[in-house]
């Protein structure tokens, strides 16, 4: 599994690029020089990177430029919200997408299948941010059923969670549907299924016990990838719904030119991402016995 070694290496994207672009705040010559010293900008890049890595691993990610609060604290503050959103969307997408995919495969060619496939196509084409806005329009503005943004006080105030989760999960639902459907179709066509049917096993048992289990391999491995995609990709949804998570704060850091903060976020995102991909690799090797002998 040389792949995950490479992945760990790629974690280097806690991007030291951000240490540059420091100018423009009305510093005097002298002040600028002092600041540079303090931030260690006058040393070559790899050394800066090493310093930064050392400090970060010890938990000190510097202070935000905006109000000089410690970055680490802010990151950890925002982290749970993003995790909550990502987890909820992941669960939703799996619960909805996979069974629909199975159904679509089993009732292939019927109206239901076409419905499923159209949904899949639509789901992948729709821009997430637009979908979110349309949802807000319908449910918050016109119907006034659900709030349009922000987050409730407690973690269990799911009223606020509903729309963002659906928006985020939409595309993944479509993806799951497609994937499961293809996998199911493939499996249903295979020999041992036909053998089971010939043996006289009841159809529903055939589907669920035999076909489904094997068809699950692909969606399962895809699911971890999707989860990591959610963690990093929740940015769009967070921005629309003003969901106080890492993505939203990261965007604001970008717009405010607040690089220590941004750096902290990127670092964390990368960690999460690498962790989930790593788990994917392991899961993949574990589930599919064919790969084990690689």
């Amino acid at each position, binding site marked *: 599994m*040389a*792949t995950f070694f*490479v*992945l760990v*290496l*790629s974690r280097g*994207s806690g*991007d030291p*690029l*951000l240490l*540059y*672009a420091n100018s*423009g705040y009305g510093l005097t010559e002298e002040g600028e020089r002092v600041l540079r010293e303090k931030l260690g900008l006058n040393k070559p890049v790899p050394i800066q990177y090493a310093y930064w890595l050392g400090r970060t691993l010890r938990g000190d990610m510097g202070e935000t430029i905006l109000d000089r609060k410690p970055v680490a604290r802010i990151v950890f503050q925002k982290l749970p919200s993003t995790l909550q959103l990502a987890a909820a969307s992941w669960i939703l997408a799996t619960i909805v997408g996979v069974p629909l995919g199975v159904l679509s495969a089993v009732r292939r060619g019927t109206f239901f299948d076409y419905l499923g496939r159209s949904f899949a*196509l*639509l789901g*992948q*084409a*729709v*821009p*997430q*941010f*637009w979908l979110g*806005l*349309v949802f*807000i*329009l319908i449910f918050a*503005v016109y119907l006034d059923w659900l709030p*349009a943004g922000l987050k409730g006080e407690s973690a269990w105030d799911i009223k606020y969670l509903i729309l963002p989760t659906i928006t985020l999960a939409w595309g993944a639902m479509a993806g799951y549907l497609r994937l499961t459907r293809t996998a199911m179709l493939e499996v249903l066509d295979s020999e041992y299924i036909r053998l089971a049917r010939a043996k006289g096993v009841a159809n529903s048992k055939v589907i669920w016990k035999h076909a489904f289990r094997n068809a699950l391999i692909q969606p399962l491995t895809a699911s971890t990838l999707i989860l*990591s*995609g959610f963690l*990093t*990709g929740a*940015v*769009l949804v967070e*921005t*629309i719904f003003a969901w106080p998570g890492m993505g939203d704060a*990261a*965007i604001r850091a*970008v*717009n405010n*030119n607040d*690089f220590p903060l*941004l750096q902290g976020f*990127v670092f964390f*995102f*990368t960690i999460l*991402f690498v962790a989930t*991909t790593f788990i994917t690799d392991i899961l993949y090797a574990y589930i599919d016995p064919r790969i084990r002998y690689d």
Partner: protein
Amino acid sequence: MTTNKESSSVSEAQVKRVNSRSIFSKALYFMRRWPLIPILIMVVLLVTGIFADWIAPVDELEQNLAFRNMAPTWGKANPCCDPETGLPYENQEAKPEQFGCEMDPEGVGGLNCDSVRGRSEYMRAKKESLPRRKYILGGDNLGRDVLSRIVHGARISLQVVAIALTSGIIVGTLMGLVAGYFGKWVDEVLMRIVDVWIALPFILIALVIAQRFLHSGGASFYVVVGLIALLAWTPFVRQVRADVLSIRSRDYVMAARTAGASHMRVIFRHILPGTMSTVLVIASLRVGQLILAEASLSFLGAGIPDPIPAWGKSVKDGKDFIEDAWWISFWPGFAIFLVVMALNFFGDWLRDRLDPRLSQIE
């Protein structure tokens, strides 16, 4: 012998049956074979992009705070023509002089009015008498015409995607060709690079790079194109490589090598044409994704700089006004949706047509 006769008689009967079908059913048959609506949408996109300047009803950059967040004139109050004179309201547009205002003779300062009241009344009258042709889909938060911005946004999307896709095709295909043809360690190395690249989270990297350029000036348009291109090249490598592997062992390639053709010649004259259909299919399947990526970047503020209209940016502009002026965000987003859908449909159709074998391509 018998088979020939049978097959010909069968085909005769079939031919007769097809010819005796009504025009209607023939049309239906035709429509099911060709994805008309997606192609139509794509053509519209192309035409709008190229001829944007002529199509857009109003100058898309012209900001006019009088029309700030103005409701769409489409289907609404402004009737087409004055019932008495029968002339279109175009000529009845409110004149500044009626309200004691005049346009600055130098053309620079805008409107000079006798009184504040006169000015606001003029603004209001101008709004109400606006001919139907203008601001059809509404005005955005700075008073620009939404429709015109969409039209020009089409052009921007096309430009970005065209450049990014082309460079992606070139790079990806080259890599695939080299990896598949030379094999062994070259292949290994290249594939590892691709794997790493695919694994990286696009949004994060895009954010970081965009931030770097955003605040230090810099040619943002090309930055965006570059970012999208970074996303675009990976799908090609794998598939082209697979194609190359299968083509490489075919007879005509072997023959060319035996005849002493150089590596370059073999690759470009013999192998490359065989991969073309794959490239085409992948390209058409991925264009939609690229457009979405560009729109997402623009939406986050890391994309095309102001004041050039881009669809994602328009959606972002309207985001804060969604309760009053939903049209600012809705129509550009809808445009994105339509276009990407059409492209996806087209890509799927192309894939099914060109080679069902390729249906493993996502």
